[in-house]
């Protein structure tokens, strides 16, 4: 293959990533040819419904795909190094120190039998080899950074002694322990009530600006994406259908799926409005539809959509869509 054009402003480039799972009755193509990039200091959103492959994309970036899943094709360039070719020994300094992840459910992501303090020290020692007092000071500093009330007290507590919001903060503190350049957020606010979600979104936005890190935020909620992301990609059935600047994506979507998804969200208008709904339900990924994966539910689908699958194409500067009829639908 010819040498790729290197773009130094990109912290992460995912190219044609394919992560498949072998399951009863066939192969589940959870992620099937995903390409996107994240710039230094950028917050990039991945929106999609459950099972569209957005979480598996995140896990692939850390090379932590749960078995029987396997990355079968593609490249993931982190600072121009293809991490899919790294030996396991070098991955240790990549995970945690360079790229860290926060999860949807802090109740299961934290170890229930270890004190919160220990779980932070562990990460610090692994990557920094700090002395004991330094480790403790740094842990308190981290907990204060994430707005944990009474941080010193928390070090000696177990996760079950913390409230849901505090657990989420503890998990963010652990993720930030080694100053990662890239934070992967897998629906960290989905399990929270709206008032807590609001607190966590504000926290992450502040931290991101303060620490200058890049973030990939995965969610099914366009509202969350609108609040914190600069650019976002819309995923459906293992593929990215559209990528654009957030304002443009919301105001001028250029894929029928994005349009339909946005239309199906109740507006703050009041009672009685019939919502535009998308017929059918997302496909079984063992038997993905031929051609464009959205065609069975798309109101604009023509015969050609069933036959061929178009990759993302730039429809206006920085705005990519995979819809082959984009030129006809939006004249």
């Amino acid at each position, binding site marked *: 293959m010819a040498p790729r054009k290197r773009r130094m402003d990109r912290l992460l480039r995912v190219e044609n990533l394919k992560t498949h799972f072998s399951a009863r009755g066939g192969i589940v193509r959870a992620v099937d040819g995903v390409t996107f990039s994240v710039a230094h200091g950028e917050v990039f959103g991945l929106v999609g419904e459950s099972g569209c492959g957005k979480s598996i994309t995140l896990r692939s970036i850390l090379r932590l795909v749960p078995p029987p899943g396997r990355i079968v094709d593609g490249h993931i360039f982190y600072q121009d190094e293809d991490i899919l070719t790294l030996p396991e020994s070098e991955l240790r300094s990549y995970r945690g120190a360079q790229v860290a992840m926060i999860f949807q459910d802090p109740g299961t992501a934290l170890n229930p039998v270890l004190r919160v303090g220990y779980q932070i020290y562990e990460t610090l020692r692994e990557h920094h080899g700090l002395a004991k007092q330094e480790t403790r000071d740094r842990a308190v500093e981290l907990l204060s950074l994430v707005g944990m009330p009474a941080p010193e007290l928390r070090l000696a507590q177990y996760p079950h002694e913390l409230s849901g919001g505090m657990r989420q903060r503890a998990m963010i503190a652990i993720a930030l322990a080694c100053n990662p350049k890239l934070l992967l957020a897998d629906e960290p606010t989905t399990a929270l009530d709206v008032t807590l979600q609001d607190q966590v979104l504000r926290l992450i936005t502040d931290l991101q600006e303060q620490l200058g890190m890049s973030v990939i935020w995965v969610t099914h909620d366009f*509202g969350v994406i609108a609040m914190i992301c600069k650019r976002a990609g819309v995923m459906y059935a293992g593929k990215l259908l559209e990528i654009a600047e957030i304002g443009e994506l919301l105001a001028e979507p250029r894929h029928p799926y994005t349009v339909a998804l946005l239309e199906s969200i109740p507006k703050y208008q009041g009672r009685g409005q019939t919502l535009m709904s998308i017929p059918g339900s997302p496909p079984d990924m063992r038997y993905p539809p031929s051609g464009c994966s959205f065609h069975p539910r798309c109101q604009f689908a023509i015969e050609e959509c069933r036959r061929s699958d178009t990759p993302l194409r730039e429809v206006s500067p920085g705005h990519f869509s995979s819809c082959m009829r984009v030129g006809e639908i939006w004249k």
Partner: protein
Amino acid sequence: MMDPSMHGVASEADRSALVEARDLTKVFISGDTLVRRLLRQKREVLRAVDGVTVSIERGETLGLVGESGCGKTTLGRCLLRLYEPDGGQVLYGGENILQYDAKTMRQARKKMQMVFQDPYSSLNPRLTVRQVLSEVLLVHRICPRKQVDQRARELLNLVGLPQDALDRLPREFSGGQRQRIGLARALAVEPEFIVADEPVSALDVSVQAQVTNLLMALQEQLHLTMMIIAHDLRFVRCVSDRVAVMYLGRIAEVAAQDVLFERPLHPYTRALLGAVPRIDPTQRPGGAAIKGETPNPVDLPSGCRFHPRCSQAMERCKVEEPELVEVEAGHYVACHIA
């Protein structure tokens, strides 16, 4: 001005109320084990619903919102007497159903049904749709055995499922379709009143709109009275005539949906609405994030339950619990400053 109906005095207003809760209380006691008794440890008393008065008029949809643990599901279940309340009254068509004996209650149940949140666990995995529906039809003697099949097909039609669904098992359906089966089951007895507990929150985003539309269409078509419990405020606004906001077992505010969303008076309602992420950034209300988290309901704050998190709390709020009062026609708020 106080609404007389709030004090149990019959008035013009509540003549049209189909369902009414008066000072309803439901307490859960945990840790009441022999070991704990022997050790003389204190039992934990959780007042999940703590003196709730609310009415639902015939043909209207009341949305009930609040954060997890605020008691909204418990209230919904108490209204159907799926939980036995510990205090207060539940009036259905003017009669206190808490005084019904088992037989009368079974009769009354025909008029009131529940739709559950999780379409995966609320259907028996080993019964076909035909069995699910015919069971209900026969138990409640809705129609003669000969007509059961015909009626089941009509129900499928009503909720937009194909006829060939009859002989399939729940696992063969998607989440949205299962929720439709749950609806068909609830509608089988031709109820007047339905409590729907988070009917769309377990569904895929693209499917939520389908079920939301179906709920609204059915409500209109069958003149149902509904209480829809949900945490998603956008969804609630879309389906409700009036909305009640619950916080820690009590009603904080009740108003017509446009009034509640446009002119909320309770600081908690304002905070809740302000925290909803908006898609249109120009619509995003600024303002400070709400402080802290919901306190442990076992150990309730004194006075107004919201005061520790309220930005406008005064001395009075710490000691005196505000009553739910009517501040303008049909708009009830439990707040000292409203």
